[in-house]
C-alpha cells in the first residue's frame, strides 16, 4: 500500500525570524493606539474610583475590600506569569521559546501592583490584639514595611529577569531600528551588548538565578497576602495550607492568562507562527493539573474546618462557603475546577487553540470572583470595640458585599491598567524573543523516519 507523502516541514532561519519579529515590533498602527486609548480611559476611571474611596478615608475598612481583591487578583495572575518563564526555563522545555518573553513582559505590571499595595496596607488595622504572622510587632516597619519590601523585591526580581533576558533583543532593536525615541531607549537598555561567548554564558547563568529567586520569593508574597489581608482579619481562620492554596491558584491564573494573551497576540497581533498548537497543547496540561490541585487544596482546607466543628470554624464555613459568599464560591468552583476538568480531559480540546483559550478565560473569571470572596469577606468584618482583643469567633456573620460604582471602576480600571502597561512594554521590548526562538531553530532538524518525516529536537546543553 502506498503511503501518502507528507510535505517536508520547513524550519525558518534566524534571519527570517529576526526580520519578521522586528517588522511586527516596529509597526505601531491605529488599532494599537485605539486599544491603548481605551485601556487608558478605563484606567483613569479606576483612578476616579480610587479617589472616591480615598475621599471616604480608611476608617471603614469594608470600603477597601474590592480594591484589595483587585490587588490580589493582579498579584495572583499578572505577577505570577514570570514563574512560567522561570519554571519552563529550568525544565528546558523547547516549546516555551516563543511564549516566555510574553510572560516576562508581564513583570512590568508589578510596578502598578506595588503602588496599589500602599493604600491596601494603610487600610489594615494595627497588629496589636489580633492574630498575625507579625505577632505583637507594634512598629510600623513590621507588617507594612515588611510587605512593601517583600512585594517590592518580587517586582524587582521580575524586572531584572525581564531586562536580562531582553538585552540581546534590545541590542537587535538598537542595531536595526530607525532613529527614534524607542531606538534610543533600546540603546540605553542594551548597555553595549555585543553577544560574545562570555556574555551569553553569564546571561544563561543570570537568567537561571533570577528565575530561581522569583520561585523562592513569590510564595512569600502569597503567604503575606493570605496572612495579613485575610487570615489576620477573619476570627477563627486557622488554615495552614492557605498560602499553598493561594500559590496553586496563582499558578493556575498565570497559565490561564498566558493562554488568553497568546490567543490575543495570535489573533490580533499577527503572531500565528509563534503561538501555535504546540504552545496551547503543552500549556493545557499544567492548566488541567492546576485545576485538579485547585480542588484538592480547597477540599483539604474545607474538610479540616468541617470536621473541626469548633464555633469559630462553623461560623467561618457559614460566612465563606454556605451563606454570604456561597455564589462566588460556586462560580469559582465551576470555572476553576469543574469546567477545566470536564473540558481538558478530552484530547481534541487540549489539542486545539480555542479549547485551552476558553478554559483559560474561564479560569481568570473564576479567579477574580474567588479573590473577591477571599478579600471582600474579611474586609467586611468589623473591628472589635476599642481596647478589646480580636475575637476567635465571628460575633455575627456579615452579609455578602456587592460592589458599588467606585468598586466596579477600581476592579475594571486596575485590570485595564495592568493590560495597558503590558501593551506599552511590548513596544519597547519585542513580545517574542528573537534570540530564544533563533536558538531553538538551530536545535531542530527534520529527518526522514520510515515513511514519514520527523522533527528531531536536540538538548541545548
Amino acid at each position, binding site marked *: 500500500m502506498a503511503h501518502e507523502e507528507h510535505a517536508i516541514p520547513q524550519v525558518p532561519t534566524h534571519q527570517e525570524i529576526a526580520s519578521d519579529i522586528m517588522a511586527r515590533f516596529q509597526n505601531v498602527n491605529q488599532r494599537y493606539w485605539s486599544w491603548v486609548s481605551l485601556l487608558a480611559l478605563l484606567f483613569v476611571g479606576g483612578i476616579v474610583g480610587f479617589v472616591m474611596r480615598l475621599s471616604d478615608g480608611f476608617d471603614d475598612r469594608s470600603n477597601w475590600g474590592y480594591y484589595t481583591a483587585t490587588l490580589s487578583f493582579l498579584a495572583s495572575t499578572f505577577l505570577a506569569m514570570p514563574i512560567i518563564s522561570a519554571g519552563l526555563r529550568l525544565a528546558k522545555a523547547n516549546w516555551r521559546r516563543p511564549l516566555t518573553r510574553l510572560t516576562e513582559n508581564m513583570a512590568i505590571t508589578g510596578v502598578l501592583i506595588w503602588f496599589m499595595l500602599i493604600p491596601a496596607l494603610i487600610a489594615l488595622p494595627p497588629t496589636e490584639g489580633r492574630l498575625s504572622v507579625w*505577632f505583637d510587632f507594634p512598629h510600623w516597619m513590621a507588617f507594612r514595611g*515588611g510587605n512593601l519590601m517583600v512585594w517590592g523585591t518580587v517586582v524587582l526580581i521580575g524586572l531584572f529577569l525581564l531586562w536580562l533576558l531582553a538585552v*540581546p533583543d534590545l541590542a537587535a532593536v538598537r542595531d536595526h531600528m530607525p532613529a527614534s525615541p524607542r531606538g534610543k531607549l533600546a540603546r540605553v537598555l542594551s548597555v553595549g*551588548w555585543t553577544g560574545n561567548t562570555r556574555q551569553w*554564558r553569564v546571561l544563561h547563568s*543570570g537568567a537561571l538565578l533570577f528565575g530561581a529567586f522569583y520561585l*523562592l520569593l513569590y510564595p512569600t508574597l502569597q503567604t503575606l497576602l493570605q496572612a495579613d489581608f485575610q487570615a489576620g482579619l477573619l476570627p477563627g481562620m486557622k488554615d495552614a495550607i492557605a498560602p499553598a492554596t493561594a500559590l496553586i491558584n496563582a499558578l493556575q491564573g498565570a497559565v490561564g492568562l498566558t493562554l488568553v494573551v497568546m490567543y490575543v497576540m495570535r489573533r490580533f497581533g499577527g503572531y500565528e507562527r509563534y503561538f501555535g498548537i504546540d504552545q496551547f497543547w503543552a500549556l493545557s496540561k499544567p492548566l488541567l493539573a492546576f485545576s485538579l490541585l485547585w480542588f484538592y487544596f480547597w477540599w483539604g482546607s474545607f474538610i479540616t474546618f468541617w470536621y473541626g466543628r469548633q464555633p469559630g470554624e462553623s461560623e467561618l464555613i457559614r460566612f465563606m462557603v454556605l451563606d454570604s459568599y456561597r455564589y462566588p464560591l460556586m462560580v469559582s468552583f465551576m470555572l476553576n475546577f469543574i469546567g477545566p476538568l470536564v473540558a481538558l480531559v478530552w484530547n481534541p480540546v487540549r489539542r486545539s487553540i480555542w479549547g485551552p483559550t476558553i478554559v483559560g478565560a474561564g479560569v481568570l473569571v473564576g479567579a477574580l470572583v474567588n479573590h473577591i470572596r477571599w478579600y471582600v469577606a474579611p474586609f467586611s468584618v468589623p473591628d472589635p470595640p476599642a481596647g478589646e482583643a480580636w475575637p476567635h469567633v465571628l460575633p455575627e456573620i456579615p452579609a455578602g458585599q456587592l460592589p458599588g460604582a467606585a468598586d466596579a471602576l477600581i476592579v475594571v480600571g486596575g485590570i485595564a491598567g495592568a493590560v495597558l502597561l503590558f501593551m506599552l512594554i511590548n513596544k519597547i521590548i519585542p513580545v517574542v524573543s528573537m534570540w*530564544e526562538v533563533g536558538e531553538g531553530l538551530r536545535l531542530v532538524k527534520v529527518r526522514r523516519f520510515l515513511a514519514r518525516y520527523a522533527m528531531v529536537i536536540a538538548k541545548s546543553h
Partner: protein
Amino acid sequence: MANTQLLGLFEDPQKVADAMGELKGAGFPVEDLDIYSGSPFPEGAFGEHEAEHRLFMFPLVGALIGFSIGLLWTAGTQISYPLITGGKPILSIPPMTIIMYENTMLGAILFTVLGVLFESRLPKRDLGLYDERITEGYIGIYVDCPVERAGAAEAVLNSNGAEEIKKA
C-alpha cells in the same frame, strides 16, 4: 608587541567552526579568539574558549550581607526598644525570619545584578569592533593577534568564506 583585532563575518555556522579549527591549527591561542552571535550556540560548538565566570559567587556574598543586615536590623530594633509582652522573650523569631529572609533575597538579587554586569564586562559605551548584522543571525569570529600575524588570520578567515572582515 602591538596587537590588532579582526572580525570575520559569516552566515554559515559550519564555516565558522571550520575557520576556528584552522585558526587554532595555525597557532592562534584559543583565548585570543571569540565568537559573536545574535543567539547562543551550545557551549563549545565552534571549539571556542569557554570563558570562566564567577557569577554564582555574587548572590552568595549578597545573601550573606543581606542576612546580616536583616538580623542586625530586627534584633537591634527589638533590643533598642524592648517591649516585653506576656513575659515572652524580647526577640520574636518568627516575624524576624520574614524580614531576614527578605533581606537575604534582596541582597542576593542586587549582587546578582552587579555580578551580571561585571562578569559580562558591561555596560560599554563603545561597542568596539562589531557589526550590526550579528543581531540578524550572522556570526562573527573575533581575533586578537599581533599586527604581524593579522595577514595570516585574515587569510584563514577569507579561505573559509568570511563575507566581510573588519579591522580595528
